[in-house]
């Protein structure tokens, strides 16, 4: 009932797969209120991550090592806003998860660390139409589930579902952070691409834990 290195690796591979699958959708979302590169950039980044994973000589010692590899690779291959934001998220998550196995509280700590990283870098709060609007409810739902004694897989499932709702909640918002903010009122009515990719990645985490 805990999540180990194998889960972490599976999460990463599933993340890469879902990002590749939704590459065009993410490009299209970003095209509408940004510059149309989010899907391309994340896909390039996660493809590189999988390449690095495949090339590893010895398997990572703990969950944190896997996440650190993700962090540094995304940081050096994604670029744009999402590169440093996700990079920092995984870096902080890696520190919080520097253990061989995660229990429910470990999952919560990991998600909280990721969110803190994003907020530390991007200075956004909820309601600004960014990935923070997906990460925040996801983390809150994880906390609630863990408090109710849910298993790690259920904690992640709750987080993923909350991320979905969070992503959807960005649709009516007027962006005040990131590139969409340049559109002012015209940013309303569109799903934020970073919130959508957050949702995809957290679902990948939950599915890997099934």
């Amino acid at each position: 009932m805990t999540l180990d290195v194998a889960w972490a690796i599976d999460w990463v591979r599933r993340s890469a797969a879902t990002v590749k699958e939704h590459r065009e959708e993410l490009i299209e979302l970003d095209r509408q209120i940004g510059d149309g590169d989010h899907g391309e950039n994340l896909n390039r980044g996660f493809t590189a991550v999988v390449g690095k994973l495949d090339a590893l000589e010895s398997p990572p010692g703990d969950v944190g090592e896997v996440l650190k590899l993700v962090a540094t690779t995304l940081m050096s291959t994604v670029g744009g806003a999402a590169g440093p934001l996700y990079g920092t998220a995984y870096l902080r998550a890696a520190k919080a998860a520097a253990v061989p196995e995660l229990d429910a509280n470990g999952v919560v700590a990991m998600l909280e660390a990721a969110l803190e990283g994003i907020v530390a870098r991007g200075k956004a709060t909820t309601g600004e139409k960014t990935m923070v609007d997906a990460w925040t409810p996801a983390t809150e739902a994880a906390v609630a589930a863990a408090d109710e004694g849910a298993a790690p897989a259920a904690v992640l499932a709750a987080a993923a579902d909350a991320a979905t709702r969070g992503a959807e909640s960005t649709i009516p918002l007027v962006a005040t952070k990131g590139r969409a903010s340049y559109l002012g009122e015209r940013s309303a009515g569109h799903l934020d691409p970073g919130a959508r990719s957050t949702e995809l990645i957290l679902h990948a985490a939950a599915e890997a834990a099934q």
Partner: protein
Amino acid sequence: MKKLINDPQDVVAETLAGFGAAHPDVVAVHTDPNYVTRAGGARSGKVGLVSGGGSGHEPLHAGFVGEGMLDAAVPGAVFTSPTPDQIAPALQAADSGAGVLAIVKNYTGDVLNFETAAELADADDVNVRSVVVNDDVAVEDSLYTAGRRGVAGTVCVEKIAGAAAERGDDLDAVTAVAEKVIANVRSMGVALTACTVPHAGKPSFDLPEDEIEIGIGIHGEPGRRRIPLAGADEITEMLLAPVADDLKLASGEKVLLFVNGMGGTPSSELYIVYRRARALLEERGVEVVRSLVGNYVTSLEMQGASVTVLRLDDELTTLWDAPVHTTALRW
């Protein structure tokens, strides 16, 4: 999508390859990671000047590497800020002991990636300072937003800070000059057509044949508002007025007027806009003493233009006039 490209993934690498091969006297192109330096390398004792950002804005920034302007430029993927592991070696290459000034356009991605790169370079004892260009008056500058974007005014910052570095100013002084330019330069742009990011394969927005976008940035984003197609004179007024107002230009002041093309606009149209913008400034009693007209900060093949005004004093004028020898700007 109609472009003279091969695989969309190779656009940046192939552009750099051609650029390096065509101008070996001015620039050296480094790959893996991608960055561009002066052919001769950093000049000892001179403050280094580095800029960078997403590709697709050519000649910005690599076209401004050379004597009197940048020491290095860092091109990211198309419309995507470069990564710290590209920027850091460029900062290092530009450093000859006098420190480096990074000229960053105000985009979340650019700011964050340059920040990280500066930390990396700092760990290698490179003294990095940075300034953030935010000249686009289409975007409201407020505590609660990402702030104004950096657009065509960046050329003015790079040229003038470059001249200051070249004449031997120290890092503090070069930074101060760059900040002075940033404080005095404003821009606003219009798109007649969208542009197509190679990997996206379709136009960045859909614009009917009889409408245009006012208040665009340089990443193919839609602008602040969509209006019916109008005459050049009318459009120019919509661009010039907010620029001049934001600068609070007073009668008797001297300025540089820069009409920039977005990549797909012929220079004839830019001169038509220039003509009207200049007349509007003159109506305000403002004297245009320096001019720049051309495609310098582009959005791929977008049709459109931006109007930039820089308030000049004697120092900035002298630095603007100082010799420059890059592939895109030379005198």
